[in-house]
């Protein structure tokens, strides 16, 4: 790992943290808890495409833990880790399949992130009623995943030449 790469990944990690923070400040109040845009997923996508699965998993884990400690509180770390693990696993498989574009991979990531969060919520609350959230989360995830993927495609393209 060269110094250049370390520096870049560190900067991308900070960018992800800023995006997490920005998103937590946005006054978007949906009636269903758990719906969010997933701005920070842009960074995960960027690292996934330009550096690979391993680096992006590390960046994702660090971002979730750090943003949990700094901004959102400890109990969101568990949700973030389970959701993030589902998300990165699904995205790397989706990327390998070669039949999806950046946008498709982002939609897959959003969908599996939601599934991961529901699994985490089920583990924590031991209540199967949590499944009622699934349709709302899945639709919101498809929309936000599409938008985030669209922006990520531009980002990945631009960052490649740097």
């Amino acid at each position, binding site marked *: 790992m060269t110094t250049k790469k370390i520096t870049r990944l560190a900067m991308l990690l900070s960018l992800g943290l800023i995006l997490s923070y920005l998103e937590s400040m946005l006054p978007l109040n949906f009636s269903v808890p758990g719906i969010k845009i997933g701005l920070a997923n842009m960074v995960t996508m960027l690292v996934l495409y330009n550096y690979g699965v391993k680096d992006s998993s590390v960046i994702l884990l660090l971002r979730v833990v750090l943003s949990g400690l700094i901004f959102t509180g400890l109990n969101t770390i568990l949700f973030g880790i389970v959701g993030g693990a589902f998300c990165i696993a699904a995205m790397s498989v989706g990327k390998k399949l070669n039949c999806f574009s950046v946008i498709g991979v982002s939609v*897959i990531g959003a969908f599996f992130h939601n599934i991961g969060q529901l699994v985490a919520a089920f583990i924590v609350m031991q*209540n199967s009623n949590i499944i009622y959230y699934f349709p709302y989360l*899945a639709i919101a995830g498809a929309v936000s995943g599409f938008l985030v993927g669209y922006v990520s495609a531009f980002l990945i393209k631009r960052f490649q030449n740097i």
Partner: protein
Amino acid sequence: MSLQKSSDYNLKKGDLILIAVILSITGIAALLIMQQKRGDQVIITSGEAKETYSLNESRTIRVSCESGGYNTVVIRNGMVWVEEADCKNQICVNHKPVSKNHESIVCIPHKLFIDVKSSRNNDIDN
């Protein structure tokens, strides 16, 4: 740093299929959930905890309360009642079985609330 193929940036056929699949899975899930939700329900609230059961499935639930006591709630033949409890006043045990919408059984010493959500309305006072 590996360069991506330019085709990765534009929407592919696979993406559209993926989105269609996700939306249809969601639609099916929503339909299944709505069907399940339409049934008559029993909502048992004990302190902060809240559980929902179907009114049409027979079962016996032992609800423990925070202060250590218990209530045994029985759901059978579309009716709910408290079979047994170790509370002081036994009001919940003596309450008649409930089955209609908005009917409830309350055990104040154990902070237990049993509410019925049903399509059958209470015809008293209507």
